């Protein structure tokens, strides 16, 4: 039974206010968003912060839903994880989901490209991607990541710990700092 206490303590240490692991569908996305919205309301957060946190959450959650579809249905249930951290001056939105190892390199390239850009550069990249008529259904060609970077105002933190020969766990962390939102 100790794991319950351990998990609770970990959540306290890591300043986590929400951790979700389970089905990631449009329905669960909506439920998580509703919970988060209520929590933001209750904390009387600045409207700009609420908006940016909400934005980043939607993109992170819908990314997981989209990429979960590539995983075998039998393994989908506990494949991914979503977390929100809250500290006095910022919110941290985090996600983890499995991806094929072949996907690491292109994804890393996209994220590094985004991290190298300033505000104007991100705006230009956003406009470039959105005008590209060949955005596939599966991805927005990184549009979601660009949007997260714009709303965050900081670099996107990411890592790809190995799960198996064919699979890695794509971890993403996005900060929304209160001063930036002002």
């Amino acid at each position, binding site marked *: 039974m100790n794991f319950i206490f351990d998990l609770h303590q970990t959540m306290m240490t890591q300043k986590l206010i929400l951790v979700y692991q389970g089905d990631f569908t*449009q329905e669960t*996305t*909506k439920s998580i968003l*509703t919970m988060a919205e209520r929590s933001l309301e209750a904390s009387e957060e600045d*409207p*700009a912060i609420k*908006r*940016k946190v*909400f*934005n980043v959450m*939607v*993109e992170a959650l*819908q990314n997981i*839903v989209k990429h979960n579809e590539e995983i075998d249905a039998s393994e989908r249930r506990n494949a991914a994880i979503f977390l929100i951290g809250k500290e006095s001056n910022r919110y941290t939105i985090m996600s983890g989901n499995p991806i094929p190892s072949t996907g690491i390199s292109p994804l890393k390239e996209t994220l590094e490209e985004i991290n190298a850009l300033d505000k104007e550069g991100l*705006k230009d990249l*956003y*406009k470039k991607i*959105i*005008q590209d008529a060949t*955005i596939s*259904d599966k991805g*927005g060609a990184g*549009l*979601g990541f*660009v*949007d997260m970077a714009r*709303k965050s105002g900081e670099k996107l933190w990411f890592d790809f710990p190995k799960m198996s020969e064919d699979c890695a766990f794509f971890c993403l962390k996005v900060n929304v700092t209160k001063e930036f939102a002002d």
Partner: protein
Amino acid sequence: MDTLHLEGTEDTPRVTLDKKSGTMEISGRSLPEDSTEFFKPVLDWIEVYAKDPNPASVCVFKLEYFNTASSKLILDVLYALEELPGMRIAWYFHEEDEDMEEAGQEFAELVEIPFDFKTY
């Protein structure tokens, strides 16, 4: 021609496209699971409308939020509207919502339609 009316939901916007009253409005939140599927009837309606449009049209956007998948489709809607005579966009945003204001300004930079910015 037929009116298109879609009630807003938690994750899809309210849509009203009515040639007779000249109403074109998309409002609320847009985060559908499949934005292409959601916006298809909107694009289809505009395609039909374009064959016999009113002499001038205004499309109102009063969005609280839209995800990036929707932004691509909103641009597609704007591209379709670009073809219409006397077209204007009324882009609404909450007074303090700089993000929505900025989003409207960016769309305005991408299409050849005059935008009027309004707060609510």
